[in-house]
Protein backbone atom coordinates (compact mmCIF):
# COMPACT_ATOMS: atom_id res chain seq x y z
CA UNK A 1 0.00 0.00 0.00
CA UNK A 2 1.31 3.43 -0.89
CA UNK A 3 2.19 5.62 2.05
CA UNK A 4 0.16 8.84 2.05
CA UNK A 5 2.14 11.85 3.19
CA UNK A 6 0.17 14.99 4.08
CA UNK A 7 2.10 18.22 3.49
CA UNK A 8 0.63 21.12 5.44
CA UNK A 9 0.23 24.41 3.61
CA UNK A 10 0.31 27.49 5.83
CA UNK A 11 -0.11 30.98 4.39
CA UNK A 12 3.50 31.69 3.40
CA UNK A 13 4.69 28.10 3.00
CA UNK A 14 6.70 27.77 -0.20
CA UNK A 15 8.25 24.30 -0.32
CA UNK A 16 5.07 22.23 -0.20
CA UNK A 17 5.00 21.28 -3.89
CA UNK A 18 8.66 20.29 -3.84
CA UNK A 19 7.96 17.94 -0.93
CA UNK A 20 4.93 16.39 -2.65
CA UNK A 21 6.98 15.92 -5.83
CA UNK A 22 9.88 14.33 -3.95
CA UNK A 23 7.62 12.03 -1.91
CA UNK A 24 5.92 10.87 -5.14
CA UNK A 25 9.31 10.33 -6.79
CA UNK A 26 10.44 7.92 -4.07
CA UNK A 27 7.23 5.91 -4.27
CA UNK A 28 4.96 7.57 -1.73
CA UNK A 29 1.88 9.62 -2.36
CA UNK A 30 2.11 13.27 -1.38
CA UNK A 31 -0.95 15.44 -0.85
CA UNK A 32 -1.50 18.97 0.35
CA UNK A 33 -3.37 19.72 3.57
CA UNK A 34 -4.64 23.25 4.29
CA UNK A 35 -3.73 24.78 7.63
CA UNK A 36 -7.40 25.48 8.39
CA UNK A 37 -8.30 21.81 8.08
CA UNK A 38 -9.17 20.25 11.40
CA UNK A 39 -8.36 16.73 10.35
CA UNK A 40 -5.40 15.10 8.64
CA UNK A 41 -7.72 13.09 6.40
CA UNK A 42 -6.20 9.74 7.32
CA UNK A 43 -2.66 10.33 6.02
CA UNK A 44 0.14 8.03 7.22
CA UNK A 45 2.72 10.77 7.79
CA UNK A 46 2.81 14.56 8.01
CA UNK A 47 5.39 17.03 6.74
CA UNK A 48 5.51 20.68 7.78
CA UNK A 49 7.36 22.23 4.83
CA UNK A 50 9.70 25.18 4.54
CA UNK A 51 8.71 28.75 3.89
CA UNK A 52 7.51 31.64 6.00
CA UNK A 53 4.34 30.42 7.69
CA UNK A 54 2.13 33.38 8.62
CA UNK A 55 4.91 35.68 7.44
CA UNK A 56 7.15 34.61 10.34
CA UNK A 57 5.39 37.34 12.34
CA UNK A 58 6.52 37.72 15.96
CA UNK A 59 9.03 34.87 15.63
CA UNK A 60 9.57 32.17 13.02
CA UNK A 61 6.95 29.50 13.57
CA UNK A 62 5.25 31.37 16.40
CA UNK A 63 1.91 32.00 14.68
CA UNK A 64 1.63 28.63 12.94
CA UNK A 65 0.91 26.83 16.14
CA UNK A 66 -2.47 28.58 16.17
CA UNK A 67 -3.48 27.17 12.79
CA UNK A 68 -6.46 24.83 13.35
CA UNK A 69 -4.62 21.84 11.84
CA UNK A 70 -1.93 21.96 14.52
CA UNK A 71 -4.23 20.34 17.10
CA UNK A 72 -4.58 17.34 14.80
CA UNK A 73 -0.83 17.34 14.07
CA UNK A 74 -0.03 17.41 17.79
CA UNK A 75 -2.45 14.56 18.50
CA UNK A 76 -1.06 12.55 15.58
CA UNK A 77 2.49 13.08 16.88
CA UNK A 78 1.50 12.09 20.41
CA UNK A 79 -0.10 8.93 19.04
CA UNK A 80 3.21 8.00 17.42
CA UNK A 81 2.48 9.19 13.86
CA UNK A 82 5.50 10.28 11.79
CA UNK A 83 5.81 14.08 11.69
CA UNK A 84 8.70 15.82 9.96
CA UNK A 85 9.38 19.55 10.06
CA UNK A 86 11.72 20.87 7.39
CA UNK A 87 13.32 24.30 7.86
CA UNK A 88 10.36 26.57 8.76
CA UNK A 89 8.57 23.34 9.70
CA UNK A 90 11.33 22.64 12.25
CA UNK A 91 10.85 26.14 13.64
CA UNK A 92 7.11 25.47 13.91
CA UNK A 93 7.70 22.19 15.75
CA UNK A 94 9.87 23.92 18.37
CA UNK A 95 7.35 26.74 18.84
CA UNK A 96 4.57 24.16 19.16
CA UNK A 97 6.75 22.42 21.77
CA UNK A 98 6.74 19.15 19.89
CA UNK A 99 10.54 19.45 19.88
CA UNK A 100 12.76 21.25 22.43
CA UNK A 101 14.93 24.31 21.85
CA UNK A 102 14.57 27.15 19.37
CA UNK A 103 15.98 28.34 16.04
CA UNK A 104 17.62 31.73 16.04
CA UNK A 105 19.32 34.00 13.49
CA UNK A 106 22.42 32.56 11.83
CA UNK A 107 25.59 33.55 13.61
CA UNK A 108 27.05 35.27 10.56
CA UNK A 109 23.78 37.15 10.01
CA UNK A 110 23.64 35.97 6.41
CA UNK A 111 20.82 34.19 4.70
CA UNK A 112 22.39 30.87 3.74
CA UNK A 113 21.41 29.02 0.57
CA UNK A 114 24.08 26.44 -0.11
CA UNK A 115 24.93 22.76 -0.07
CA UNK A 116 25.68 21.27 3.34
CA UNK A 117 27.15 17.97 4.38
CA UNK A 118 25.32 16.25 7.21
CA UNK A 119 26.41 13.39 9.38
CA UNK A 120 23.78 10.91 10.54
CA UNK A 121 24.00 10.71 14.34
CA UNK A 122 20.98 8.56 15.15
CA UNK A 123 19.19 5.93 13.09
CA UNK A 124 16.32 5.76 15.52
CA UNK A 125 14.10 8.22 13.65
CA UNK A 126 11.54 8.15 10.86
CA UNK A 127 13.99 9.87 8.50
CA UNK A 128 17.12 7.87 9.25
CA UNK A 129 15.83 4.34 9.81
CA UNK A 130 17.33 3.12 6.55
CA UNK A 131 20.66 4.90 7.11
CA UNK A 132 23.73 4.23 9.25
CA UNK A 133 25.35 6.32 11.94
CA UNK A 134 28.25 8.14 10.34
CA UNK A 135 26.69 8.31 6.88
CA UNK A 136 27.41 11.60 5.18
CA UNK A 137 24.59 13.21 3.25
CA UNK A 138 24.72 16.12 0.88
CA UNK A 139 21.55 18.12 1.46
CA UNK A 140 21.17 21.87 0.93
CA UNK A 141 20.18 24.48 3.49
CA UNK A 142 18.19 27.62 2.81
CA UNK A 143 17.58 29.72 5.90
CA UNK A 144 18.21 32.85 7.90
CA UNK A 145 17.16 31.45 11.25
CA UNK A 146 18.73 28.03 11.51
CA UNK A 147 20.97 28.49 14.49
CA UNK A 148 19.75 25.83 16.91
CA UNK A 149 19.74 27.06 20.50
CA UNK A 150 18.91 25.16 23.66
CA UNK A 151 19.88 25.12 27.32
CA UNK A 152 22.75 22.98 28.62
CA UNK A 153 20.15 20.78 30.33
CA UNK A 154 18.21 20.19 27.12
CA UNK A 155 21.44 19.47 25.23
CA UNK A 156 22.39 16.88 27.85
CA UNK A 157 18.99 15.20 27.48
CA UNK A 158 19.26 15.23 23.67
CA UNK A 159 22.64 13.54 23.91
CA UNK A 160 21.55 11.05 26.53
CA UNK A 161 18.49 10.02 24.51
CA UNK A 162 20.38 9.84 21.22
CA UNK A 163 18.00 12.52 19.95
CA UNK A 164 20.46 14.45 17.78
CA UNK A 165 19.67 13.04 14.35
CA UNK A 166 21.90 15.13 12.05
CA UNK A 167 24.94 17.35 12.61
CA UNK A 168 26.66 19.67 10.14
CA UNK A 169 30.15 18.70 9.07
CA UNK A 170 30.99 22.37 8.66
CA UNK A 171 28.64 24.28 10.97
CA UNK A 172 27.33 27.11 8.75
CA UNK A 173 25.07 28.94 11.18
CA UNK A 174 26.49 28.68 14.69
CA UNK A 175 24.09 25.94 15.79
CA UNK A 176 24.68 24.52 19.25
CA UNK A 177 26.71 21.29 19.02
CA UNK A 178 26.57 21.52 15.19
CA UNK A 179 22.94 20.39 15.35
CA UNK A 180 21.12 20.27 12.01
CA UNK A 181 18.23 18.07 13.10
CA UNK A 182 16.75 16.47 16.21
CA UNK A 183 14.02 14.02 17.09
CA UNK A 184 11.62 13.53 19.97
CA UNK A 185 12.09 10.72 22.44
CA UNK A 186 10.19 8.20 20.34
CA UNK A 187 11.81 9.18 17.05
CA UNK A 188 8.49 9.75 15.28
CA UNK A 189 8.86 13.54 15.29
CA UNK A 190 11.90 14.94 13.50
CA UNK A 191 12.88 18.52 12.74
CA UNK A 192 15.75 19.53 10.49
CA UNK A 193 16.95 22.71 8.82
CA UNK A 194 18.29 21.14 5.56
CA UNK A 195 15.84 20.37 2.75
CA UNK A 196 15.74 16.67 1.78
CA UNK A 197 13.22 17.46 -0.99
CA UNK A 198 15.87 19.56 -2.70
CA UNK A 199 18.24 16.61 -2.86
CA UNK A 200 15.87 14.04 -4.29
CA UNK A 201 16.79 13.89 -7.97
CA UNK A 202 20.12 13.56 -9.83
CA UNK A 203 19.41 16.82 -11.64
CA UNK A 204 19.48 18.60 -8.27
CA UNK A 205 23.03 17.44 -7.64
CA UNK A 206 22.26 14.97 -4.89
CA UNK A 207 19.79 12.21 -4.16
CA UNK A 208 20.71 11.89 -0.48
CA UNK A 209 17.49 13.59 0.58
CA UNK A 210 15.56 10.82 -1.16
CA UNK A 211 17.16 8.34 1.26
CA UNK A 212 15.54 10.23 4.15
CA UNK A 213 12.17 10.39 2.42
CA UNK A 214 12.32 6.67 1.65
CA UNK A 215 12.74 6.15 5.38
CA UNK A 216 9.70 8.33 6.00
CA UNK A 217 7.49 6.34 3.67
CA UNK A 218 8.89 3.06 4.95
CA UNK A 219 10.53 1.81 1.76
CA UNK A 220 13.63 -0.33 2.22
Amino acid at each position, binding site marked *: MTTRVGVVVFPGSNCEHDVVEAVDAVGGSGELLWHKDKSLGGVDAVVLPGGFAHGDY*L*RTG*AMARFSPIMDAVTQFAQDGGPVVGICNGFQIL*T*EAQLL*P*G*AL*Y*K*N*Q*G*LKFLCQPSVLRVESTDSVLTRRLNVGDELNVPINHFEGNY*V*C*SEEVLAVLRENDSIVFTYQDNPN*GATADIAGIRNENGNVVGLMPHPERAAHPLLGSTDGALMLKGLIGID
Partner: protein
Amino acid sequence: MSKEFDVVVEVSLRNGIADPEGLTIERALPALGFNGVSDVRVGKSLRFVVEASDEPEARSQVESMCERFLANPVIEDVEITLGPLT
Protein backbone atom coordinates in the same frame (compact mmCIF):
# COMPACT_ATOMS: atom_id res chain seq x y z
CA MET B 1 -15.19 47.79 37.38
CA SER B 2 -12.51 47.13 34.83
CA LYS B 3 -9.84 49.67 34.01
CA GLU B 4 -7.46 50.02 31.09
CA PHE B 5 -3.69 49.81 31.35
CA ASP B 6 -0.97 50.89 28.97
CA VAL B 7 1.52 48.09 28.47
CA VAL B 8 4.99 48.00 26.98
CA VAL B 9 6.69 44.63 26.68
CA GLU B 10 10.39 44.78 25.84
CA VAL B 11 11.62 41.50 24.38
CA SER B 12 15.37 41.01 24.39
CA LEU B 13 17.71 38.12 23.79
CA ARG B 14 18.68 36.26 26.91
CA ASN B 15 22.13 36.86 28.30
CA GLY B 16 24.57 34.43 26.84
CA ILE B 17 22.77 34.16 23.49
CA ALA B 18 24.92 35.70 20.78
CA ASP B 19 23.24 38.64 19.04
CA PRO B 20 24.61 38.75 15.48
CA GLU B 21 22.36 41.67 14.57
CA GLY B 22 23.59 43.77 17.51
CA LEU B 23 27.17 42.88 16.69
CA THR B 24 26.78 43.92 13.07
CA ILE B 25 25.31 47.28 14.08
CA GLU B 26 28.11 47.75 16.61
CA ARG B 27 30.71 47.12 13.93
CA ALA B 28 29.00 49.56 11.55
CA LEU B 29 28.83 52.53 13.92
CA PRO B 30 32.53 53.48 13.72
CA ALA B 31 32.07 53.99 9.96
CA LEU B 32 29.87 56.97 10.86
CA GLY B 33 32.38 58.24 13.36
CA PHE B 34 30.70 56.82 16.45
CA ASN B 35 33.56 55.16 18.24
CA GLY B 36 33.35 53.68 21.69
CA VAL B 37 29.93 52.06 21.35
CA SER B 38 29.69 48.61 22.90
CA ASP B 39 27.18 46.02 24.07
CA VAL B 40 24.66 46.70 21.29
CA ARG B 41 21.69 44.36 21.72
CA VAL B 42 18.69 44.33 19.41
CA GLY B 43 15.22 43.49 20.70
CA LYS B 44 11.67 44.46 20.02
CA SER B 45 8.90 46.15 21.91
CA LEU B 46 5.21 45.44 21.87
CA ARG B 47 2.74 48.10 22.99
CA PHE B 48 -0.88 47.51 23.77
CA VAL B 49 -3.75 48.31 26.10
CA VAL B 50 -5.15 45.68 28.41
CA GLU B 51 -8.36 45.65 30.44
CA ALA B 52 -8.25 44.36 34.02
CA SER B 53 -9.82 45.03 37.39
CA ASP B 54 -6.57 46.33 38.86
CA GLU B 55 -2.87 46.64 38.15
CA PRO B 56 -1.74 43.31 39.67
CA GLU B 57 -4.33 41.48 37.58
CA ALA B 58 -3.23 43.34 34.45
CA ARG B 59 0.40 42.46 35.16
CA SER B 60 -0.43 38.84 35.77
CA GLN B 61 -2.32 38.68 32.46
CA VAL B 62 0.60 40.20 30.56
CA GLU B 63 3.10 37.86 32.24
CA SER B 64 0.99 34.93 31.16
CA MET B 65 0.82 36.26 27.57
CA CYS B 66 4.60 36.57 27.53
CA GLU B 67 5.15 33.07 28.85
CA ARG B 68 2.77 31.45 26.43
CA PHE B 69 3.21 33.50 23.29
CA LEU B 70 4.83 36.94 23.16
CA ALA B 71 8.32 35.67 23.91
CA ASN B 72 10.15 32.39 23.56
CA PRO B 73 11.74 31.67 26.96
CA VAL B 74 14.40 29.48 25.31
CA ILE B 75 16.05 32.54 23.77
CA GLU B 76 14.29 35.64 25.06
CA ASP B 77 13.76 37.66 28.24
CA VAL B 78 10.95 40.15 28.76
CA GLU B 79 10.57 43.33 30.72
CA ILE B 80 7.04 44.55 31.33
CA THR B 81 6.19 48.20 31.95
CA LEU B 82 2.60 48.85 32.86
CA GLY B 83 0.56 51.82 34.07
CA PRO B 84 -2.94 53.32 33.99
CA LEU B 85 -4.03 54.38 30.49
CA THR B 86 -3.36 58.05 29.99
